[in-house]
């Protein structure tokens, strides 16, 4: 099964040793956890030079392993109107390219934040964002549903987010540990 939006995997021309692999993956974990981690901090955390960190990150960005950096925002808290919906899309795949073409077509819309090919009852899982429910519903009806290979759409409006990208939306209760324990 193809995954159109995932990181590209290239055949490495350069032989990567396992030490590099370990460091590279650690950097990726750190950045995934905190995209704002500064290179100086990362260099401290891993015990390698800042230049090394810079070099590796630039390389990963160039190769498309790191595809972007995003802040996770609670727009409701920010007081900004924002409505999101998860659209289940059933698609007739194309003969030669399968799901890719239609997925890429849908992905082109700026209102579409996520497009994934999934297993199960429908084919594409699409996350759409708009200012109001009406905007989102109209977008799906006018832009997605009419597409040639789209057979069916079911729209689920996101009502409440509890956790996003590994981050809890509810402020966690103050740490229950004792302030000092020997």
């Amino acid at each position, binding site marked *: 099964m193809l995954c159109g939006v995932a990181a590209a995997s290239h055949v490495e021309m350069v032989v990567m040793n396992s030490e590099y692999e370990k460091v590279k993956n*650690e950097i990726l974990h*750190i950045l995934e956890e905190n995209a704002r981690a500064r290179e100086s901090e990362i260099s401290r*955390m891993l015990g390698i030079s800042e230049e090394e960190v810079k070099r590796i990150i630039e390389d990963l960005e160039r190769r498309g392993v790191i595809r972007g950096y995003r802040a996770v925002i609670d727009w409701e808290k920010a007081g900004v109107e924002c409505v999101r919906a998860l659209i289940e899309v059933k698609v007739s795949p194309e003969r030669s390219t399968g799901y890719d073409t239609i997925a890429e077509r849908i992905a082109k819309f700026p209102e579409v934040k996520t497009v994934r090919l999934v297993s199960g009852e429908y084919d594409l899982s699409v996350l759409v964002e708009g200012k109001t429910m009406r905007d989102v519903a109209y977008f799906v009806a006018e832009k997605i549903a009419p597409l040639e290979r789209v057979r069916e759409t079911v729209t689920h409006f996101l009502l409440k987010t509890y956790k996003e990208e590994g981050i809890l939306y509810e402020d966690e209760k103050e740490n229950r540990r004792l302030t*000092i324990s020997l």
Partner: protein
Amino acid sequence: MVIKMRTSMHDKISERVMRIRGSGIREFFDIAQRMSDVISLGVGEPDFTAPWSVREACIYALEKGYTSYTSNWGILELREAISDMIYKETGVYYNPENEIIVTTGVSEAADIAIRAVINAGDEVILHEPSYVSYEPCTIFAGGVPVSVRTHVEDEFRLNADALESKITDRTKVLILNYPNNPTGAIMRRKDLEEIADVVCEHDLIVISDEIYSKLTYEGKHVSIASLDEEMKNRTIMLNGLSKSHAMTGFRIGFASGSPVIIEAMMKIHQYTMLCAPTTAQIAALEALRDENSVERMVAEYNRRRRMIVSGLRDIGLDCFEPKGAFYAFPSIRSTGMTSEMFARNLLFEEHVVVVPGNVFGDSGEGFIRCAYTLSLHKIREALSRIERFIDRHCR
């Protein structure tokens, strides 16, 4: 008329308990506990919660009604899993039937280990700076604690000659705690070999508290019990899941060693604790099956370790590189303050908690213990507050 004299309850307290020095530090702890906006580098337990699968297993055990006693030794399946774990980690095999006992935390294991082998007047050697429980437990057992100082120049490793110099004909036990609380020091194989020579020559028993064994950041943890058959026989190996799996509140620990000693410990355990908490034992079994969460935790601690050590050094505090546990032990001598003064002032002025090193013995004077059991974000904040504090006082 007879006037009845009111007896002071103080007179009723046992002499041994009276001998435990009351720490003036208690008051400091209480104040810290009640302060707000405090960043605490004084917490000796993980900031992670026990893995969900472990908590789930515990909840399920409660649902199924596992609320009665288990065998005094601990659930056999758990002992088997412990035996596997110890073998994988140290290469030492212990028979789950009679060489392993599950206790209520390593704290209980240390206590009954001491009680099982100490006669009144026997001497127990502890390396300082030392975790606070060993001395009191020795005194409760009627033993005599003897300290050996370790030095930052040696990265707080126990030196064989220093050890030998403290041995008398009453010395019975050596308590080892590596990776070490409070210093974060570790012992390498050759260091342990030198200690083992002294141990064997003087016919000592070793109680090796290895609770931080999984938090070893350089090289692999080596247990003194793994050196040879002789040392395996002489060593009571203590370990648990509190620090590696964030299960401090579950109260699960274990001791392994020669069947004769373990059985002696069993005798005490069966009449006092009876058995470790049942649902906690079941949770522990689940924990031992989950290796991934430990790896992730260790990687996270390692990042924090590097951050805090380099951060402390940048501020101008000498800090040796701790290779185990989750403590940094920087020297604050350059500030001219005593450990307690430093800790107290830092708490009141910047609301940062550190534990003054002298709590862990005289060799800890001039140092502070900084636990990196909190997020990188909070560590950063703590470091900047400490820097402000030092700037204000020393420059």
